[in-house]
């Protein structure tokens, strides 16, 4: 038996020195731990990583060096503290990885390209692709291929993948999971890009949790205001998807019906630019059942867990969301409600967060 101390070196990661992102298979659990911390916080230090993962300073050093070489992590300037030695912050390199998110909404499909810190580099809204039932999602494939082309050639190998956020009704009553899997396989085979598929509301919740207002929170109720109102419960950073198809018809569709009855122009409601004309009293009338419904959901959940924090995510104008939050707080003094801050298309940004969480974070 040879002395294994002097066996050939067996480096954790260094063997793969290609310039692009490393293959998924070689990313170790510990590396994912470090990246998870960095995706959850905007900046950390090697000391903090060690304290939170239980890894030794030397192991953290090896992991961080390897992530730096891969271009995923950037070292900041040393900061002199009032006491003790200076700290050296670590952050994600915004250019380290990119992701494409696609969300299929009520009428439109949103496509975003985001960088590693969640900044939207490109956002386009297209009419929904027509889904030929059962197979051949050629419109989807074309849309994704267009999105990939947004990335300069040199950055193409830094594309972590495509996230696809699909609403429940798109699967046409089939078992959701089987449908999503078939779609994913088809896209991957034809375009050669890793595709991650998720329910759109869950995706919006992940986006808000990774890049938005909810970044620092671990337990909260997440509402998504689209055509309908949807909810997700987040406990200890985990999004509970549940198996309930429940959504409430108190959302923007309900507002649209009210406005049409009054003969008003409704196109702006579905616009992503985030400005609604002054609709007058109709807005207050619409908000009432919406806030009642949110409050009912919170009351129902309060039987099981105490929730003090609420996030409301929507492509509706931020001002409208903030007003809803204030009213919700007035109706339920135990909670603090905030509007999500992913402008434009929270669902598409959420979709784009999926390749990051799948490839870089611990599950």
């Amino acid at each position, binding site marked *: 038996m040879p002395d294994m*101390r*002097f066996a050939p*070196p*067996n*480096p*954790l*990661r*260094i*063997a793969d020195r290609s310039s692009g992102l490393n293959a998924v298979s070689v990313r170790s659990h510990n590396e994912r731990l470090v990246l998870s911390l960095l995706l959850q916080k905007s900046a950390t*230090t*090697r*000391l*903090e990583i*060690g304290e939170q993962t239980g890894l*030794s*300073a*030397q*192991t953290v*050093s*090896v992991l961080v*060096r*390897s992530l730096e070489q891969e271009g995923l992590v950037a*070292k900041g300037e*040393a900061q002199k503290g009032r006491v*003790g*030695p*200076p*700290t*050296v912050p670590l952050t994600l390199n915004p250019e380290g990885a990119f992701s494409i998110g696609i969300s299929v909404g009520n009428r439109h499909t949103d496509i975003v390209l985001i960088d590693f810190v969640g900044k939207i580099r490109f956002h386009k809204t297209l009419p929904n692709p027509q889904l030929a039932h059962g197979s051949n999602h050629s419109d989807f494939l074309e849309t994704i291929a267009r999105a990939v082309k947004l990335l300069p050639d040199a950055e193409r190998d830094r594309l972590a993948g495509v996230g696809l956020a699909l609403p429940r009704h798109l699967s046409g009553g089939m078992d959701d999971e089987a449908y999503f899997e078939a779609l994913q396989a088809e896209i991957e085979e034809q375009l050669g890009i890793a595709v991650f598929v998720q329910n759109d509301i869950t995706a919006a919740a992940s986006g808000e949790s990774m890049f938005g207002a909810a970044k620092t929170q671990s337990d909260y109720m997440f509402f998504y205001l689209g055509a309908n109102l949807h909810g997700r419960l987040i406990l200890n950073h985990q999004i509970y998807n549940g198996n309930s198809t429940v959504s409430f018809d108190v959302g923007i569709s309900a507002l649209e019906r009210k406005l049409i009855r009054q003969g008003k122009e409704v196109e702006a409601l579905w616009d992503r630019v985030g400005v609604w004309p002054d609709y007058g009293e109709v807005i207050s009338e619409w908000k009432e059942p919406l806030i009642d419904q949110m409050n009912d959901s919170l009351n129902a959940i309060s039987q099981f867990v105490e929730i003090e924090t609420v996030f409301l995510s929507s492509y509706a104008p931020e001002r409208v969301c903030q007003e809803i939050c204030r009213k919700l707080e007035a109706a339920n003094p135990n909670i603090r409600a905030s509007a999500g801050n992913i402008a434009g298309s929270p669902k598409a940004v959420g979709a784009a967060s999926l390749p990051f969480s799948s490839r870089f974070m611990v599950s």
Partner: protein
Amino acid sequence: MRTILCYGDSNTHGQIPGGTPLDRYTFERRWPGVLARELGTGWHIIEEGLSGRTTVRDDPIEGAMKNGRTYLRPCLMSHTPLDLVIIMLGTNDLKARFNQPASEVAMGLGCLIHDIKELALGPSCTVPEIMIVSPPPMLDDVKDWQNIFKGAQQKSHELALQFEIMADSLEVHFFDAGTVSTCDRLDGFHINGEAHENLGVALAREVEAIGWK
């Protein structure tokens, strides 16, 4: 007070390029001195640089005392408790008399790392932090030393990768001195005052980045 041991060869000793082993930069100009200045109060820097030191090899010409492995153990014991051991060795192992590839020099370095871990002479009998520093590559023209270092230049360019592979395998800190300094043209394998300054500053930042409570 934290203690750092700087364990190396003539380039830690501060030998002046083109000079004799007796020509030495002053403490303030040698990289351990620059490191001390940069880290400031609260750090105690111990210099252990010996001209001609190898990683694990008894030198048949210069003598067995140039073997970095046999001297390391008593040296660690003398200076315990140590918070960090910085090792910059490897150039002398490339001398023609040893006939070793860069990967074997890295294996020798691995022995030193195992020895440090085994002795556990850090605070409260823990393993101190260990930082491997690969020396800057030699220049092609090493003047009178051409025969002694026959074939060494090419290998010296491979040390950084081989050392980093070893550092990663054994999970220790690593820094490539070649990223901030070069050897001086006067002899092609010693570093000059400017290189000492750059290396000391860079290593101070590396030491800080480890994170200390």
